[in-house]
Structures are given as structure tokens and as C-alpha cells.
């Protein structure tokens, strides 16, 4: 209570009556102000937590089901008449039968197989039966037959994805009532699905394919996955790591330790801080002009995405690294110089190791920021439908690929409601990646931090 106002002479009598245990009006006002301030703080945090909880619950509610998928396993007989009209099992000739042809074989086989189960569902048409499997199934079947032509004419056990609407029924997205109105699924199909599930032919299990599969077209939402997007994102992060970190750290060391303090370095400093606040789309425009139009790099390639994100992350890394270098006490440098180390030795042997935790944290936060970026990728052609996995590095860096945030953006624009679930699932994966990176940053900081 050192800052208690001194009793004023005019009201000395009133003051002396007041006890320290009984707060006077001014103390009460100050205490109330402090309480109010704390309440504002708590409210601010509560709003932030509510927003976060709302965001996470919506995403997890919508997206958790993306990690489960319904599969049908059923034996089908492969009709040799259609698949191999010549009867010589020649792969080159057989590949003339398109996926659509296999679709018809699959339809006929399904009708037979499901007919033999004698399920007795009133009003079930052949079209209903054909519609319960994914269109991806015929592509899988074709691939399997072309790999092993001897399968033609035999009865094989098929384990295929079911149609997105049927899958939605087991996830609660499609109901009997909505199926009445929906032209893409009939209540009979749902009854059939129920009957098949009862016999154990239709099971919902963990969806590994969601992580490994490439994107799929609007007609096969059930087969869409984030495989290509993950590879694209990893490639871009590699490029950013190998370019932004050395360039950023070298630039900061020079600016912080060696560069003379003059007007030019001031200008550079202001520009770096400015660049950190430039909207990311600007870097996309720059990337299009420099890397694609001028340098002639291919469109939609992770190398270009990585270069653009490098430019975007550099200011963040430089600012973080300079702050970390500044935090190393001058006494360390002075001591090193005092025992005869050169300037460079003092920096690399003493200052840099001590600044490492700060540099790593800054770098990882920069990478995490780059990982979630979509806007600059829009202009360099990475916001695209890419179905083929890029090759291994380094050549694969030049193949078209997608990226995780791009995949989310793409899926939210598709018309089939099943893509909402996929988009939320991809967001969950992206959040897990970001969480891991931030945890790593926290761990590294804790592990290497030194105090003076």
C-alpha cells in the first residue's frame, strides 16, 4: 500500500477514522477497475475458446466420418464374352474394353450374385442393384483383370467401395426420408444395403484409402483421397526447408552480426518487415511471372509452389532469426572475441548454437504458415484436379501435384454432398500436421533453450 494517497490536511480527521481493513471509496474504485479488467480478459479468452471449440466440433462432426468407409465384398463371375471376345487372353486386345464395359459386366454379375441371395426386397430394380457399388469398382476390376488375364471366366471375390449415398446411409447423412426425394438413391437400395449388412457382406471399416488415394471426379466421391495432396505438400515443404532456411539464416546472420548499420541496411530492414505483411496472393503473381513465364518451369508443379512459398516464408524466418540472434547477450560475443576468436568463429561457434532454439521455432512456424497457404498456389496452377502421383524426388518435384489446403478448397466446391465430409476430413489431417509441427517447435525450444 505504498502508493496510498497521503491523507490531506483538510480532511485529516476523516482519513484517520478509516481503517486499513475497510477500503475507502478510491481503493474500492481501483479494485473494481482491476476486477473489470480481469473480467474483460476472461471474456476475451472465453470467446476465443468458444470459437475454437465451435470450429473443432463442426469440423470433427462433419469430417470424422471421412475416415470410415463402407465396403462390399461379394463374389462375381467375370463374363468372358464381353471382356475377351477373341478368347485369347491377349492383354493388348483386352485393354480395348473400357471401364464402362467392365461396369456392365459388374452390373450383370452383381444382379446374379445378389439375386441368388434371395433377399426379397419389394420394388428393387436391376438399376438399384447396380447403383450400390462405386463407379471406382469397375476401374479396379479392369486393372485387376488386365494384370491377371486368367481371371476372365472365373468367379472372383470382389472387395469394393459402395456408392457414396449408400455409404452416407451408414454414416447417417442419407436417411429413408431423404432417399425418397433424392434422385440418386432409392429407399429400396437402402433396404438392400441393410440386408447385405445383416449378412456381413457390407461392412464399414477404417478408410485407409482416404489417406493414400488420389482425388476422384464428382461421380466417385467415395473413392476420393488426399494421397497426391499430401505428397505435394511434403514436396513443397522440402523445397521451402532447403531454400528458405539457409537463405533466411545466412541473411539474418549477415544483417545482424556483420553488416554495417547505415541507410542501406535500414532500408533493407524496413523492406523485410514490409514483405512479411504482403498478402500471399502477391507472391503467387510474382511466381507466375518469374518461375513459369520467365524461367519456363512447368505449371502445377510442387517445385514452383515450393519456390513461391519460400519467398513468402523468408521474411518470417529472417525476422525470427534476427530476434533470436539479438537475444544472445553481447557478453558471449565479447568473451569469444576476447580469447582471440575471429568474428566468424564467435558467430558460428557461440552465437548461432545459442540462438538455435529461436531459429528453429521461427522456421517451423514459417513452414506451418506455408503449409496452410492456398492463395499463391491458385495462380501457378496447383489448384487443380490431379489424379496421378508425382514421381520420386528430385524429378517428381516437376510433376503436377496438389496440396492439402488446395484439396480442401476444391472439395468444398463440388456439388455432391459427400465431398463436404471429405473436405472436413482433409482439414482434420491438415490440423494434425500443423499441431505436430507446432508441438515439435515447442519441444525443440524446451530442449535447447538456455538461460543466462
Amino acid at each position, binding site marked *: 500500500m505504498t502508493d496510498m494517497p497521503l491523507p490531506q490536511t483538510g480532511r485529516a480527521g476523516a482519513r484517520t477514522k478509516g481503517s486499513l481493513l475497510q477500503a475507502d471509496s478510491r481503493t474500492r474504485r481501483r479494485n473494481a477497475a482491476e476486477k473489470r479488467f480481469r473480467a474483460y480478459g476472461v471474456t476475451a479468452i472465453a470467446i476465443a475458446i468458444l470459437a475454437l471449440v465451435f470450429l473443432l466440433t463442426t469440423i470433427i462432426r462433419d469430417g470424422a466420418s471421412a475416415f470410415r468407409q463402407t465396403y462390399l465384398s461379394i463374389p462375381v463371375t467375370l463374363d468372358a464374352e464381353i471382356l475377351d471376345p477373341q478368347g485369347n487372353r491377349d492383354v493388348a486386345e483386352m485393354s480395348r474394353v473400357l471401364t464402362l464395359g467392365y461396369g456392365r459386366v459388374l452390373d450383370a454379375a452383381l444382379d446374379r450374385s445378389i439375386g441368388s441371395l434371395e433377399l426379397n426386397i419389394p420394388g428393387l430394380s436391376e438399376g438399384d442393384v447396380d447403383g450400390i457399388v462405386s463407379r471406382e469398382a469397375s476401374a479396379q476390376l*479392369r486393372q485387376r483383370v488386365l494384370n491377371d488375364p486368367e481371371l476372365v471366366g472365373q468367379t472372383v471375390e470382389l472387395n469394393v467401395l459402395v456408392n457414396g449415398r449408400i455409404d452416407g446411409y451408414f454414416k447417417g447423412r442419407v436417411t429413408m426420408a431423404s432417399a425418397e426425394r433424392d434422385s440418386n438413391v432409392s429407399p429400396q437400395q437402402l433396404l438392400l444395403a441393410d440386408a447385405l449388412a445383416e449378412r456381413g457382406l457390407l461392412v464399414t471399416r477404417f478408410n485407409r484409402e482416404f489417406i493414400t488415394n488420389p482425388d476422384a*471426379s*464428382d461421380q466417385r466421391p467415395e473413392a476420393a483421397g488426399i494421397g497426391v495432396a499430401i505428397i505435394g505438400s511434403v514436396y513443397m515443404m522440402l523445397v521451402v526447408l532447403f531454400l528458405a*532456411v*539457409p537463405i533466411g539464416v545466412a541473411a539474418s546472420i549477415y544483417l545482424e552480426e556483420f553488416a554495417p548499420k547505415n541507410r542501406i541496411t535500414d532500408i533493407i530492414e524496413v523492406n523485410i518487415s514490409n514483405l512479411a505483411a504482403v498478402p500471399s496472393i502477391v507472391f503467387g503473381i510474382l511466381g507466375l511471372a518469374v518461375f513459369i513465364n520467365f*524461367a519456363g*518451369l512447368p505449371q502445377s508443379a510442387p517445385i514452383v509452389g515450393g519456390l513461391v512459398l519460400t519467398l513468402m516464408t523468408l521474411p518470417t524466418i529472417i525476422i525470427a532469426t534476427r530476434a533470436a540472434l539479438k537475444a544472445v547477450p553481447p557478453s558471449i560475443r565479447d568473451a569469444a572475441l576476447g580469447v582471440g576468436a575471429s568474428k566468424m568463429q564467435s558467430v558460428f561457434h557461440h552465437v548461432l548454437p545459442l540462438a538455435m532454439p529461436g531459429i528453429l521455432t521461427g522456421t517451423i512456424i514459417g513452414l506451418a504458415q506455408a503449409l496452410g497457404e492456398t492463395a499463391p498456389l491458385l495462380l501457378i*496452377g496447383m489448384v487443380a484436379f490431379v489424379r496421378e502421383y508425382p514421381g520420386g524426388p528430385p524429378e517428381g518435384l516437376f510433376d503436377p501435384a496438389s496440396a492439402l489446403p488446395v484439396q480442401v478448397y476444391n472439395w468444398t*466446391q463440388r456439388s455432391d454432398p459427400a465431398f463436404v465430409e471429405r473436405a472436413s476430413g482433409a482439414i482434420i489431417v491438415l490440423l494434425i500436421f500443423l499441431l505436430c509441427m507446432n508441438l515439435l517447435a515447442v519441444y525443440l525450444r524446451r530442449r535447447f533453450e538456455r538461460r543466462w
Partner: protein
Amino acid sequence: MKTFGLTATALSVIALSATAAAARDQVQIAGSSTVLPYSTIVAELFGENSDFGTPVVESGGSSTGLRRFCEGVGENTIDIANSSRAIRDTEREACAAAGVDEIMEVRIGYDGIVFASLNSGNAFEFTPADWFNALAAQIVVDGQVVANDRTSWSQVNPELADQEILAFVPGTRHGTREVFEERVIRQGCEDSGALEVFTAELGEEAAGEACVALRTDGRSVDIDGDYTETLARINSSPNGIGVFGLSFYENNTGTLQVATMNGVTPSTETISSGEYPVSRPLFMYVKKAHIGVIPGVKEFVEFFVSDEIAGPSGPLADYGLVSDPELAATQQAVTDETVMQ
């Protein structure tokens, strides 16, 4: 020292990247978001059923696609532009200036534009005149041009339900907006006789503009995003009526009901027969100079327009594309590599 090693590696990566603008082995496509789902469906099938790579398909809108198409000839330009409208003369000039003078125009089919609202609400039977009278900024009442202050559909046409007027129409950057203005609003302007009054009062040119000027008091809302945004807006304001593509509606019949236009329900059949009035052709523009240079360009286009794919019983028609009755002519033109004159 390690940092310098890394820097050296990084620099070598840059050097490598400058030289390794390697030959690309898949077709690149960009353009209209309306054509996008059809393009991805065909790209997927093409990748599965041919020895070529799966084409890379980008969205971005017809104008963006055509602008990138016209950037020039070469491996780092796109091969095919998707468009929900015909290429404009100015765009062809830009193309020619950049050396893209041989362009193949491929009409892949037709797309219907439908008016849909939530299943739980009222059903509607519209005519173009209803839309004009509900959404135009100025309408004609008893021969007089007055500002539009109608609030309910039943004020527009006593046969319609007494429901607040609230329409979500495509924004001006969409190809769909052009068709909506042309085939619905302008048509309604003509049908209701408002065009004559406008012409008499304002002159011919201004009358055309007055016809398609939509009211700005919040009854007509421009949607600059895509149909998923329109659907989200309708979900949050159940009195709204949205403008959708036929294929989008067909994939969401669980939540949406469609309004008839002039008494005709939109479907692939009524659109291909021409009974349903609001439809437009969809196009692909192909760079002829890339045929034989980029592997698979011609094969992809041939595959796209083949009867199995774009025909009335193919996967595109399943998805909502109205197949072109003159598909055979298109197939012939693709085989002959006929360019636009």
C-alpha cells in the same frame, strides 16, 4: 559451415530447375467451373483407359481459362480451355497476337439453368416475365415505368405463392449470368411488353440495358462463388430461390425442388428437345499446335466426344450434361482437326 553446404545444395536445386523444364506427359486443362466436373469425369476415365497420363484439370472460370489459353504456344501453357460460353472476338484477337491462331472449337453438350428452392417450401411455376417483374430495377405498371417495389411473388403473379421475393443469382463474373440475363430477364422484359415501353421512353440501346438492370434493394443477391455458396445461402434463408446448373440440382435433389419454366420441368430430355428455354452450349477450345507435341491431346478430345462418353447414355449425361444431338458432326470435326475460321 553446415549452412553454407545447405545453401550450395539449394543453389544447385535452382540451377537444376532452370534447365529441367522437362517435357510434360499429361494434358493440361483450365477454365469454366461449370465444365469442370465433366472434364474431371472424362480425365479420370481417360487416365484409366489409355496409356496417357490423367489430364490435370483446373477451374477458375471461362474468362480466366481463355486468357491463359491465349498466352501462347508451348509446354508451359495450357492445351485446352473449358468455357461455358463461346469465345469472344477480342479473345481470339488476343490469341492470334500471342501466336495461337489455330483453335479447334469443340461443343461438348448443353447445360440447363434451373431455378430451385428448398424442398420444404412452396413449389413454383415461373415464366420469364415473372422473373423480370420480380427482379428488374424498373418495371412497367399500367404503361408507366416505375421503380420495382414488389415484395412478394404473389404481387408479381397472383398464381404464385405468397412468398417473399429473394433470389440468389450468379454474379457478373459467371458465364451463367449472361445466359440468365439473356434467356430469362430480357425474355421476360419482351414478353411482358416492358421492352416496348422502355424503347419508347429511353431509346433502343438504353431500353436493352434497362431490361437487364436488376434491383439493388437486397431482393436480388449476386453470388460470386459457385453453386455450393448459393445452396448455403438458401439453407440459411429458406424463402430464397437460387439459380443452379442442372447437374448441381440433380446431385442435390434430396434438399432442392425445381421450379418449372413456361410449364416445362427441366431435365436432360426437355433441354435437348429445346422445350425448356434456359440452356446454353458448353465448349472446349483446343490448341491445334499442341496436337502431336503434347502426348494425348487429340486422343483426349476424341475420347471426350465419343458416343460412349458424351452420348445420351454415357457418364456425362448421367451427371447432368445434355448431350448434343449433333455429336456426330463434332466427332468428325475433331478427327479432321477442323479449326475455327
